[in-house]
């Protein structure tokens, strides 16, 4: 299957590159026709402006050689117009009396002919009493149009990357139709067998030659595994160590008695609507705080920063509070149906947000979007949980989480570009369109589910939260690590940085590229770390390192000029959280079963998610409060210290209680 994906993606990349390349080629030609004459006119205006100044000085009776500070005036003109190569004042005989240049080749030129070379020039005479006493010459590089387009290629590269990721998601989705799932299923079997992997696959329903071939392969795998089991039984009965060693060697090479943990192929169907839905929400990250700011009016007792944070805080609070109760509701109503309802609610929310006339309407429509988001999240997660067992649930949830991660990578840069070029309202409408696409995908691919008639899973109870947080190790893990991590993400990355970068004059396209670094780090690191942290049994270490790295990341905004400081900070937070997210989640189960054994894993993770979600609401509120009351520096440093301190406290508690040793590293009991 991978070979198929590679062929399609490789060819689509080539096709898109060729198409975008052709457009850029035409753009360069068009830009040359438009910009070069315009640049000449601009150079003429600048040259005439400078000649006016020189003429004024000469008119006061000075000679050209006596004019003091002419080089500085030319340098100032070049600073204001960096696209020009040089500006010079020359006598009628061609001798240069003052020169400023943006290119080293021209430094020290003594006569005009040394300067002109291959550059285009614009000349304005310096006239005093009707006679020309000198001329001002401005040099223009030939490659101005190419330079402009080259800068644009950063946007084009981001666009290409996002298009390819979306293509990959849609390819996966297209393979969920019944005939395609047989083809994908057969290709999976083929690839596994070529790699000597004889673990059994989930059966696939269907008719026709492909279905027969799938059944034949499964039949052969079952036969070989059955023979292996028979021979193992015989070897054990005869206590034939040599045969047992051979069989063990075969087991290691061919996986003849282990089970497969892959989620069923049918689960891939839920990924596309989830991806499209979260892509819609992630589009808004780079411009949402500034969009809110455009509606913000002072409210007595609240700083303006606090007012701007209100819709974000409320959105996150609704998602946090609604999630525990939505699990039962979506189970009763049907997961697929709930997912579709959530998508429609969010669609309405995005359309309303695009046309909001004041802060109250904005808050109302963002709240509707929040209910939609919480519903989709819980329904999609429940859909996977309902269709997986303990063996493959983690992989199934991984499928869902990686869809969200890819959306976090794709959404901000595209949202930023859309908002910068078309405006925030248009970008919200694009989000609404994506919600509709998510609704269509869910309608097409997710089977109709009957509402549950029996008892449904109970929601999270406060007593469960209390039981978990009474344990110091759990308190420090959840309130010391998980909560501040989300506070940092939403409060610093998604609330503070877009506002501060916009205030510094950066457009939402740049802000989007900065924010995408978080998703990029997470997408790359999470799969790597989930294997490494399990292998090494060093989950606590990963969580602590993640917290300290994340806390220290805020320092970059004080060290580097913007937007680089923000970009490095976001990247470091992405790396830090990429390191800590999976081990942290695993530690919840591990410490929970040790300290709160009476609580089910479902209840335990319900508390964990609630605390995490609370962090997303508290983060922007805390950031805005400190920012408004004590300034941005205090807010940034405070957030960094909180995150790092939480990690260190958890490290100390792990050392004291021996909690740092995980099951993998503990001696066998």
């Amino acid at each position: 299957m991978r070979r198929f994906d590679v062929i399609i993606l490789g060819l689509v990349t080539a096709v898109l590159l060729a198409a975008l390349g052709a457009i850029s080629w035409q753009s360069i030609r068009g830009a040359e026709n438009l910009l070069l004459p315009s640049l000449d006119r601009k150079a003429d205006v600048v040259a005439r402006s400078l000649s006016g100044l020189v003429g004024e000085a000469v008119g006061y009776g000075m000679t050209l050689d006596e004019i003091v500070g002419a080089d500085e005036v030319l340098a100032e003109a070049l600073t204001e117009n960096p696209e020009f190569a040089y500006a010079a004042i020359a006598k009628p005989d061609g001798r240069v009396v003052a020169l400023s240049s943006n290119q080293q080749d021209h430094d020290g030129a003594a006569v005009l002919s040394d300067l002109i070379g291959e550059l285009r020039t614009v000349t304005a005479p310096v006239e005093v009493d009707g006679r020309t006493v000198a001329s001002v010459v401005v040099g223009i590089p030939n490659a101005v149009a190419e330079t402009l387009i080259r800068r644009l290629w950063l946007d084009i590269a981001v666009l290409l990357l996002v298009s390819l990721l979306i293509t990959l998601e849609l390819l996966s989705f297209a393979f969920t139709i019944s005939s395609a799932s047989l083809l994908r299923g057969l290709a999976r079997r083929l690839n596994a067998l070529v790699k000597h992997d004889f673990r059994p696959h989930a059966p696939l329903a269907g008719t026709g030659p492909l279905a027969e071939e799938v059944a034949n392969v499964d039949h052969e795998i079952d036969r070989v595994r059955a023979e292996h089991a028979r021979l193992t039984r015989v070897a054990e009965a005869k206590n034939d160590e040599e045969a047992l060693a051979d069989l063990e060697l075969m087991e290691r090479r061919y996986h003849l008695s282990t089970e497969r943990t892959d989620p069923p192929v049918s689960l891939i169907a839920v990924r596309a609507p989830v991806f499209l839905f979260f892509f819609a929400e992630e589009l808004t990250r780079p411009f949402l705080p500034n969009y809110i700011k455009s509606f913000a009016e002072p409210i007595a007792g609240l700083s303006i920063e606090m007012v701007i944070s209100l819709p974000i805080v409320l959105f996150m609070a609704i998602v946090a509070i609604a999630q525990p109760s939505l699990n039962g509701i979506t189970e009763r109503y049907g997961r697929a149906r709930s997912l579709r309802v959530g998508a429609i609610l969010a669609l309405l929310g995005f359309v309303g947000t695009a046309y909001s006339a004041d802060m109250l309407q904005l808050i109302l429509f963002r709240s509707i979007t929040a209910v939609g988001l919480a519903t989709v999240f819980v329904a999609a997660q429940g859909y996977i949980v309902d269709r997986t067992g303990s063996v493959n649930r983690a992989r199934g949830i991984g499928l869902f989480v990686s869809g969200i991660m890819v959306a976090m990578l794709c959404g901000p840069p595209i949202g930023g570009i859309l908002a910068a070029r078309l405006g925030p309202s248009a970008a919200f409408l694009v989000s609404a369109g994506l919600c509709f696409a998510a609704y269509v995908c869910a309608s097409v691919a997710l089977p109709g589910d009957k509402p549950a008639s029996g008892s449904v899973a109970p929601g999270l109870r406060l007593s469960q939260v209390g039981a978990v947080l009474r344990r110091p190790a759990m308190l420090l893990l959840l309130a010391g690590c998980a909560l501040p991590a989300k506070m940092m993400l939403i409060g610093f990355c998604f609330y503070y940085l877009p506002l501060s970068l916009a205030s510094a004059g950066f457009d939402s396209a740049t802000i989007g590229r900065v924010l995408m670094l978080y998703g990029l780090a997470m997408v790359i690191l999470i799969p790597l770390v989930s294997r490494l942290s399990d292998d090494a049994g060093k989950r606590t270490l990963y969580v602590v390192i993640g917290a300290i790295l994340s806390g220290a990341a805020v320092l970059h905004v004080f060290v580097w000029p913007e937007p680089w400081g923000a970009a490095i900070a976001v990247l470091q937070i992405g790396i830090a959280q990429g390191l800590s997210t999976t081990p942290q989640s695993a530690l919840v189960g591990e410490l929970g079963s040790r300290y709160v054994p009476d609580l089910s894993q479902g209840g335990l993770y319900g508390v964990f998610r609630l605390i995490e979600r609370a962090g997303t609401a508290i983060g922007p509120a805390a950031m805005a409060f400190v920012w408004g009351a004590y300034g941005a520096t205090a807010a940034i440093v405070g957030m960094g210290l909180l995150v790092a301190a939480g990690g260190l406290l958890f490290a100390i508690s792990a050392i004291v209680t021996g909690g740092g040793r995980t099951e993998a590293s503990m001696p066998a009991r």
Partner: protein
Amino acid sequence: MRRLAFVLMVALTPVVLAAVALGAYLNYGSIRQSYLDMVGDRLETVARRVASDSESALSIGIPLAGQATLSRLLQREREADLVLSSIDVVDATDTILFSSDKSRIGMKETTDPELTLDRSAAIQNAFETTEGTVVVRASRAVLDSELQELADGIEHVAIYAMLGALFGSFAAVLLGLRVLWARVSNTAETAGGQIVPKETVATFRMVDDAHRSIARQLGVAEAPKEVS
């Protein structure tokens, strides 16, 4: 197979079209912005130069309203750049004192960003208090007409690029599916008598051989090639 190819093509169509359209718009938008910035800089330079001349006159005691030579300067500057629609010198009460367009003199200064691109520079006296403002305007209609040729050119190529990208993607889907189909339809029979993809037969044979060898070593009969 056909249905799958159709579904893949339908799924790819909006992605490919959106990527190329957005790319085309980014190209156009970027050049448009550069052009408008360039025009804006030009207007600002003109505004600053006129303001500087006016300040020189103020410094030798000629009040702003008495700087009659400004009219000729504004006219000359306006004629030097066809994009400019007007250059006004406005006093502190927003009344136009001098203008390249004589009919505007005496009117109140108003700005409509839909119609014009404006840049201004303050005219300050020796005490750095503002005596007036120079407002330089370019007509949006003229700017849009200059941009139209660029827009038409990019749109033309973008349409062909979209079509090309669409057909290219369809070809990619068909080629990819053909390769995949060839893999799964190239079949052979296993020792167990099952028709499976040919690529897997060697793997099954390898495991069967190893099992056979172990069965001989254990002194048991080889299992029948059908699952019991």
